[in-house]
């Protein structure tokens, strides 16, 4: 049972759900086309055969209905996982998530709770155009009462999803579409990665990059490139935006004196602003030796044209350049 194998991120998400559903009768999944079709990206493929249509529930095409059902089920003691085909459609589920799921436990003084997970693929890179490619995690991170998770690797995805299911509060679980095919070593047995614990994906001395989701991979590539010029990059993946592991980020910036934040979401109003502000307010301020640099998506709807689509979000070259800039070496 304790062997490591290489799994894709997609398989890791599926395994986390299947293992939990075998253990816990209260857990079920609901969403559009998640049954025989296996979901928009195939995450739940094969699950209906094992768990049956009662626990892998196909729903009408209504994110409002899916989220409303999930909130209700959670209040009655179930632990639903709902899948939204594209995170862009969270707008339709927003009232249930923001005004109900996030508030009920608080408003009823803890007499009820909403243990649910909203899983949804986000991000660009698949040619899915403006309505199917956004990264809207900053919206959800803004709402007290919701937890927000953004795993970047298969290993993190499995462990964080277990923690999300176990959590008694609503958790928004963002899966990046381009991460689905990435692979990493994943233990066979169930394990949990605590929400609010960042991961240092690479240790370095000269500059800290805080990156999320697919940008973790791009930052790692940039770090390889920068190493050739003798620049040592530390990469921190917060893994969860809410709660946020500020201690690890502040500690790293104190060490390196320089910070680059990179996410795919539009820079304006993006979560990078939050991280930059935390550093500016923290004890790390006195250690900053260059202005903080944020990299984020351009303030445009994601274009359909593949070249423009790539140009709309930060790439490896942009990260390399930003790092050199904060080191006065551009």
């Amino acid at each position: 049972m304790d062997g490591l194998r290489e799994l894709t991120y997609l398989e890791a998400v599926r395994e986390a759900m299947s293992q939990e559903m075998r253990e816990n009768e209260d857990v079920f999944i609901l969403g559009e086309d998640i049954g025989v079709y296996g979901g928009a990206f195939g995450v739940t493929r094969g699950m209906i055969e094992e768990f049956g249509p009662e626990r892998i529930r196909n729903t009408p095409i209504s994110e409002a209905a899916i989220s409303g059902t999930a909130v209700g089920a959670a209040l009655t003691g179930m632990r639903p996982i709902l899948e939204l085909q594209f995170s862009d459609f969270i707008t339709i589920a927003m009232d249930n998530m923001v005004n109900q799921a996030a508030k009920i436990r608080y408003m009823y003084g803890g007499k009820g709770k909403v243990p649910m997970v909203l899983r949804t693929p986000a991000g660009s890179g698949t040619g899915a155009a403006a309505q199917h490619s956004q990264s809207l995690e900053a919206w959800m991170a803004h709402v007290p009462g919701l937890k927000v998770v953004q795993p970047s690797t298969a290993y993190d995805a499995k462990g964080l999803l277990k923690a999300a299911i176990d959590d008694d509060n609503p958790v928004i679980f963002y899966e990046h579409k381009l991460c689905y095919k990435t692979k990493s070593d994943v233990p066979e047995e169930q394990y949990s990665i605590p929400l609010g614990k960042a991961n240092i994906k690479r240790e370095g001395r000269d500059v800290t990059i805080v990156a999320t989701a697919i940008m973790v991979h791009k930052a790692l590539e940039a770090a390889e490139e920068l190493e050739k010029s003798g620049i040592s990059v530390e990469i921190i993946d917060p893994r969860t935006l809410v709660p946020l592991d500020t201690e690890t980020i502040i500690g790293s910036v104190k060490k390196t004196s320089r910070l680059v934040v990179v996410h795919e979401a539009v820079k304006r109003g993006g979560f990078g602003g939050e991280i930059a502000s935390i550093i500016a307010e923290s004890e790390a301020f006195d250690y900053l030796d260059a202005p903080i640099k944020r990299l984020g998506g351009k303030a445009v709807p994601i274009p359909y044209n593949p070249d423009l689509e790539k140009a709309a979000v930060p790439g490896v070259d942009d990260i390399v350049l930003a790092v050199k800039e904060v080191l006065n070496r551009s």
Partner: protein
Amino acid sequence: MAKEIFMPKLSSTMEVGTLLQWFKNEGDSVEVGDPLFEIMTDKINIEVESYEEGILLKKYFAEEDEIPINHVIGYIGEAGEHIPEAPPGESVAAVQDILSDSRQPAMHDLEEIEISETTTINETGDTGNENSQSEKIRATPAARRVAKEHNIVLSEVPGTGPKGRIHQKDVGDFLQSAPKATPLAKKVAGAERIDLHTINGSGPQGKIYRADVEKMRQPSTASETGGRRMKMEGIRKVVAERMLQSKTTAPHVTLTTEVDMSEAIHLRKQLLGTIEKQTGFRLSYTEIVLKAVAACLKRHRNLNVSLEGNEIIFHEEINLGIAVAVENGLLVPVVKEADQKGLSDLTAECKRLGTAARNSNLKPQEMSGGTFTISNLGMYAIDAFTPVINQPESAILGVGRINEKPVGRNGAIELRPMMVLSLSFDHRVIDGAPAAAFLTNLKEVLEQPFKLLV
């Protein structure tokens, strides 16, 4: 109003200072930066410069007086100003200064006062450059933090970042390079276009006074002929300072004697194989001399001494330093308790220490605690020399080459392998007769090494 002159607190442990000499008399006019008086603290001697200009109105203390820190020593002001007849005690200004800086009272020293002085001058004095002064300084938070920690005025630091932004590294570089100088010294150096870096400051931590700058103004032959210049630093500087101190504080006397080394050569030949088998190293004359010196010092305790303050310390241990030439200087690793060790151990240890010295691998404890030093130039064509005492030790033995010389023996002239020993000693601590007795004993032991067994 007359300005107080008070005893500065020059270190965190300083309680009182001794007034060594006044450079000005009452009624003399004083400029900012002029040396006023010299004091001695528990650590250093220092000339104190004036921060005010005017007339020296009053001197409350005479030379050799001990004065508590912050107590008023005198007044500078305009002629005819009223000042107290008796010493007013603690300076009000100095105490207030400390109170306002209660954050780090121990740090309140002369340097800090001078830095604030520098700031004042920057703000008011430099009218030609007002624009850059009034503009806010671009510096990163890290640069500001480090500058604050080291009391650096950021406006003096050149920034290498975009638009002249000062980064942490710039402050670090400035800290490394910036010579400490009094405002007046800076002004004079600026007017004379003398680079402060080229001036050797005579103050604490190389601080540059006006006198140092003026010394540079006089043309020296060295600067006219050009030639390669090397900054005195690291081990070179340490050697220079220590040699100068030894030569200027210890009255050196050097005794020489010639030793017939026939028996020592014989002894070495007989032991060479045995010791090489045991240690892997070849026994050399250094170790034989070392062994003999250790044995003789044991009998002549009055050469194994140090002078500390006004006390002579007679050392229990016999720890022998060996001078080793290294690149750009000289190191003296120490063989501890040499009298307790046989030739085999001494050979192994000397070789190891010599290698470590040349590879800069000596640990601090391997260079300290010496009680007597041996300097061997026998590998060169040197017969005798006058070694400089390695303080705080009080004597050093110079070893020359072994050279065949005609010697009178039993009414005939014979060629014998002779070696000169040169013993320098500090005549403050050691007199000629005991030094001569020691050297005679050493000669006997080397000429008849079986005496080592006695």
